[in-house]
């Protein structure tokens, strides 16, 4: 049964990304999109989402991380806002040129100067010629839906393109609204058959890593077998 939740745009995005069962997330803070990464970090920390959560050194690093991860067959998610979007500019055309279905959330914000936090589309629009699919959500519900729709379209073997999934900063990203959340089974059944059938991916299963232990278990077994245990 689908359930109704009251979520901000950022929280709705995080819910959708979780239900898409992404493999690799790369974050770097910049408001207003940051709230989505805060939600996802919590989901990973609490074991609700089995994904690699990587802190990038900046937006250029974020996009470089998901570029590599997507090339290796992982479903990826990253995001940014405002000047963060333009800082990563170099990496957009290699990703679309390589036909990798990276997904990037943008919660729109003005560019500098004068260090404006206001909501406007100048950040995303400056990237419109980079060969990415691009579209906007006008409510938390549309934000939720668009992430799933974009994975489905972008990972279709006939398409294979990265996607900017945009929403207005603050007005959508931070104002809660009612969001109808489908069952995980519904999402699994409809969305993800596409990447499976693509010859460019080495993923054995779109919805789970068949035959593999969860990453968390792998990580701890590696730690226990090694002489030194990393701080994390």
């Amino acid at each position, binding site marked *: 049964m689908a359930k109704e939740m009251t979520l901000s745009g950022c929280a709705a995005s995080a819910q959708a990304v979780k239900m898409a069962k992404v493999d690799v997330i790369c974050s770097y803070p910049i408001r207003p999109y940051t709230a989505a990464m805060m939600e996802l970090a919590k989901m990973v920390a609490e074991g609700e989402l089995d994904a690699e959560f990587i802190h990038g050194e900046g937006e250029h690093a974020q996009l470089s991380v998901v570029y590599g991860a997507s090339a290796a067959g992982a479903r990826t998610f990253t995001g940014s806002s405002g000047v963060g979007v333009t800082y990563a500019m170099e990496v957009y055309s290699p990703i*679309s040129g390589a036909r990798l279905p990276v997904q990037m959330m943008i919660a729109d914000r003005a560019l500098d100067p004068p260090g404006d936090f206001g909501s406007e589309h100048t950040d995303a629009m400056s990237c*419109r*010629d980079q*060969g990415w*699919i*691009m579209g906007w959500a006008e409510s938390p519900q549309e934000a939720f839906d668009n992430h799933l729709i974009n994975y489905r379209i972008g990972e279709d073997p006939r398409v294979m393109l990265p996607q900017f999934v945009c929403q207005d900063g603050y007005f959508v990203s931070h104002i809660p609204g009612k969001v109808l959340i489908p069952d995980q089974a519904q999402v699994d059944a409809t969305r993800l058959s596409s990447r499976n059938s693509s010859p460019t991916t080495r993923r054995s299963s779109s919805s789970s890593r068949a035959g593999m232990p969860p990453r968390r278990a792998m990580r701890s077994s590696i730690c226990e077998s090694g002489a030194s245990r990393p701080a994390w």
Partner: protein
Amino acid sequence: MKLRFVRPFPTTQVAESLAKFKGVGVVETSTSYGGSMRGGNLLVEVRAALYDVPKRPLTTSFMAGLGGDAVTLKDFYWMAEILTNAVKAGRVGKTVYWAGLEQAVA
């Protein structure tokens, strides 16, 4: 005509200079995948500038020299032929023609 500046875009001057022609081909060296003109970025601007002209010329764009590809005199004759045919027919077939690629196919 040659655009010395693109920002700020000389909207009025473009409209005044090109209004007297029946057909305008915009030669460009950049593309926007998925854009409304299916390629030409300058065509978007030129078309918009000509929108309020009473008798708008037909407009299309020619993609030439992308990736440093050589643009030859032959390419320009090819562009002129397409534009002439478009004016004769009273309509343009496409918003973008790729010089050096479409001739090879045809």
